[in-house]
Each structure stands twice: as C-alpha cells, then as structure tokens.
C-alpha cells in the first residue's frame, strides 16, 4: 500500500489546470451490470440451496438417517432463509458493487464515503482536510497517485498521495466553487500505458465539485480563525501597552502627587480645615493608586513582565498551595506574543488550582515543550482524576476557550499513571 507523502511544492502562480480531458456522458457498461447481477443472484441461490441442504440433512439425522425430514423442518428452512436473505442480499450487493464497479457507477456512494471521512474529524485543519480528501479519493478509486494544488493561506501548495507511475498520462481537473477556481486535482492512470476511463473522469469531476465546496469552507474557517487570533493577539498587546503606561506613567505620577500633598500638609501648618482637606486628598490618591495596581494586575499577570513566562510559571509553582510540584521546560523560549504567554500562564494556573482544590492531588508536574512548530504545555497531577460522569465546569471551559481563541487545542484526559493530564497545544505559526 502506498504511504501518504504530503509535501509542499512551490508552483506557478497560475493553477495548472490545462489540459483536462473532456467528458461525455457514457451509459453504464452492460458487462459490469451482468457480472454484478450474476454474482449477486448466483451467490444468493447457492446460499439458499446450502441452507436448505444443511437444515434438511440435520432433520434427517435427527430422525435416524431418514431421507425425508419432517415437514416442520421445511418450514424451519423457509423461516431461516426469510429471516437472513435480506441482510445477506444487502451486504452482498454493496460488497459486489464495490468490487465490480470500484465506485465508478455509484458517485453517491463515493461522495458519501468522502463525507464520512471528513465528518469523522470535524475540526481538521485545511491541510488535514486536503490530505483526507486525496487519501479517500485514492482509496475509493484505487488510484496510485492523487494530488491537490490549492492555496491554504501560505501560497499555492501541492499535497500528494502516492507517486505517479511511469508512462501514465497525468490528468488535471479544475476544482471550483461557484465561478471561482479554488484548486486543481491531479491524478494518473492505475497502470503504465493505460489511461483513466471516462467513468473515472466523470466520477472525479463529481468529486471535484464537492471538494471545491469543502476547500472553500475550510479556507473561510481558517481565515475566520486567523482573524480571531489576530484580534486576541492585538487585544493582549494593547493590554500590555496600557499596563505599562499605567504602571510606568500614571502610577509614579500618583505617587509623586501623594508626596507633594504630604509636603503641602507640612506647609499649611496648623490650619485644621486645610489639613483635613489634604488628608482627604491623600486618602483619595492612595485609593486611586490601589485601584491602578488592581487594574494593572487584571490587565496582565505582573509576573509575566517581571520574570518572563518561564519565571512566572516557576513563581506559580512557589505560590501555589501545599502540593509537591516540579516544572520541566527548555532553558530559553523564543519571544512569544503577549496573548500566548497569558493563555499558557492562565491555563497552568487554572490546572494547578483544579489539581489542588478538586482532585486533592499531592504531586503535580508542569511541562513546557517546544517541538518544531508546536508549543505544548502539559500539567499532570496524581489526584483523584476526572469525575464520572465528567461535566466541564467554568474553569475547564475557560481553558478550552483560551486555547481555541489562539487557534490552539486543549485536552483534559485521565493521566496514564492516574490523576488528570491537561495538555494545551499552540501552533507556532500563531505564535
């Protein structure tokens, strides 16, 4: 079996569509129909005969080798056949159709197969969707080579299944959505010196129309996720800027104002009205400073700016209550956007909180791993695990939401060694 080898090629700006083979309507080959029907009803006949022979022979055995079974054995035979012949017929028909036609004459079944594969994992990335499409087309049509060229947001990319055999004609079919071209489907014949049949091409064209809709939807979904990520990233960057301004600008200004009020209080001497007024002003300034400090903390965890993400996570380790904790992380991380730092910090804090408060864990490990394009945070504890039945609460939903809004993913699963394992993964392209 060919293995899947997706790869990205740089291709010309124009999608390579020509030359496509023109399709004309062709009636179903009568030979295939005869073969399919012959096999189906031939095997069914054998099935019925065999059931009859076996049941009647058993009846004969029961009646001491009598050659004629009692009448009710015939009735039993009819009942067994009546009860089983329809499921056998259904299974045989689909199996024989799959074998004889290889989906050629059943585009609905091929489309249904494609839809089922796509539905199996509804949250796939556009790249994974393209891979699913080409592997499904290759499997249903028994094609050794299928490729799709499309723009998934990184310029034109070609995703390939299998390899084109030597001496085979390469066929390219346009993938469109409405009047817009969204990609191209490339394939080739199954054997050297052969070409794809008109039925193959007709089915591929039918599939290409559905693929066009799917690709268009995937691109829209991806663009929407990108917009969402940009919004969240911009929001967190803006929060960081506002926090810096408050902390470095307004905070010192208020502190200076308070000092000046103290100096003014000494200057006015024993005027009780003025002293009372100044004291009230100092109390107001103190309250405003406290409010600014609270705002600064709410905008962004201060430890992130003071110690960086790794330092903040280590500090989180120190300030969390009673558990034995450890942290495993690379010595240094690349610069991360504020949004990702905050998301990782908040998710780790929430997971630790849950471990201590709800799972009664005594030990917890925080792992931060940077692997190729993935940044992964794993928090594992040895607590009582997830409740049964599991129902996500506010904290878990919040963690999911924080990961999803940056295009990442989060899973909360039982840990292999008992307890709970929270894993948050972010794509570095987002980062």
């Amino acid at each position, binding site marked *: 079996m060919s293995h899947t080898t997706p790869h990205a090629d740089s291709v010309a700006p124009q999608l390579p569509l020509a030359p496509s083979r023109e399709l004309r309507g062709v009636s179903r080959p009568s030979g295939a129909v005869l073969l399919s029907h012959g*096999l189906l009803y*031939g095997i069914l006949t054998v099935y019925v*005969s*065999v059931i009859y022979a076996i049941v009647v*022979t058993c009846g004969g055995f029961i009646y001491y080798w009598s050659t004629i079974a009692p009448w009710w054995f015939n009735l039993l035979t009819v009942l067994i056949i009546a009860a089983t012949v329809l499921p056998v017929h259904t*299974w045989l028909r689909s*199996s024989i159709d799959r074998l004889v036609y290889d989906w050629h004459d059943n585009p609905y079944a091929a489309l249904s197969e494609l839809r089922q594969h796509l539905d199996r994992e509804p949250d796939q990335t556009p790249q994974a969707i393209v891979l*699913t499409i080409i592997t499904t087309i290759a*499997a249903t049509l028994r094609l050794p080579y299928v490729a799709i060229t499309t723009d998934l947001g990184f310029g034109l990319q070609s995703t390939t299944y299998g390899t084109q055999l030597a001496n085979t004609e390469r066929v390219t079919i346009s993938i469109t959505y409405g009047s817009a071209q969204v990609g191209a489907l490339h394939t080739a014949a199954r054997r050297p010196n052969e070409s794809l049949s008109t039925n193959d091409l007709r089915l591929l064209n039918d599939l290409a129309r559905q693929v066009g809709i799917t690709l268009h939807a995937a691109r829209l979904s991806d663009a929407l996720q990108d917009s969402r990520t940009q919004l969240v990233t911009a929001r967190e960057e803006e929060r960081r800027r506002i926090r810096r301004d408050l902390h470095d600008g307004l905070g010192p200004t208020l502190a200076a104002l308070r000092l000046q009020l103290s100096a003014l209080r000494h200057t006015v001497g024993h005027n009780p009205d003025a002293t009372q007024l100044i004291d009230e002003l100092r109390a107001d300034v103190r309250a405003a400073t406290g409010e600014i400090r609270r705002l600064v903390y709410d905008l962004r965890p201060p430890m992130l700016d003071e110690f960086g993400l790794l330092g903040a996570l280590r500090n989180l380790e120190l300030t969390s209550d009673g558990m034995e904790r450890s942290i495993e992380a690379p010595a240094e991380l690349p610069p991360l956007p504020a949004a990702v730092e905050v998301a990782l910090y908040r998710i780790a804090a929430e997971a630790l909180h849950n471990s201590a408060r709800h799972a009664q864990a005594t030990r917890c490990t925080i792992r931060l791993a940077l692997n190729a394009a993935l940044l992964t945070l794993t928090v594992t504890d040895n607590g009582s695990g997830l409740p049964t039945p599991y129902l996500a609460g506010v904290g878990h939903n919040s963690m999911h939401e924080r990961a999803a809004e940056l295009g990442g993913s989060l899973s909360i699963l039982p840990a292999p060694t008992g307890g709970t394992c929270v894993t948050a993964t972010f794509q570095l392209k987002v980062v």
Partner: protein
Amino acid sequence: MNRPRSHTIAAVLIVLYSLISLMFELPNLMQGPGELAPGVEGPPVFLTIINFTLLILGLVSAYGVWQGQKWGVLLAIIVAALSALSGIPAILFAPFLALRLSGVLGVIWSAAIIVLLLRPRPNPITA
C-alpha cells in the same frame, strides 16, 4: 503489492482447499467410476470432472488474488460459489456421515473465502 490481508488469507485458503481436494479427486479421475464401498457407488464421472476443473480454476484464481488482480478475485468468488453448490449433493445424498461432514466443511470453507474476498479494503486513512 496493493493486496489487503483478507485477500492474502483467502488466497492461502483457496490453495489449501484445492491441493487437499486434488489429493482425493485425482485417484477418482484416474480410476474412473468405482465403488466407495462394497455395493455403494462412487460419485458420477461428470461430477468428478467438474470438481477437478473447479480445483484447477481455484489455483489459477489464487494466483490472481495473490497478484492483487481484480479478475483473480472475481474468478475466486465464482469458483468458491460453484464449489459450495457442488457440495450440496454430498450433503444431501452421501452414504457416509464423514462424506456429508466433508461436504459441510467444503461449503463453510467456500463461504469463508467469499466473505474474505468481499470484505471492504481497509482505508489508508485508518489503516
């Protein structure tokens, strides 16, 4: 070789069935119609010839299945169905219990081959 595991098993079953049956059919074919036991006639010659032909075709179809050819699969299914059909007289009319049981065994064997050959191929996505 693009051949599912079920087809490999089916090809092995076909070869085993054909070789074992040939060991019994060849003497019948060489000696012509005879007696299974004193006073008990053996199978008719035409049935022996049909069985022998099916066994040879079975070996050919096993080669086709092994090579991953569609014609091999189709031929193997047809041969298995006809083999099952030819086993029915043995189940109904064979004079000995052993012969009847061998008929039932042949039918089960043929059914297993058909089921294995008609099983859907595993999808590369989930394989």
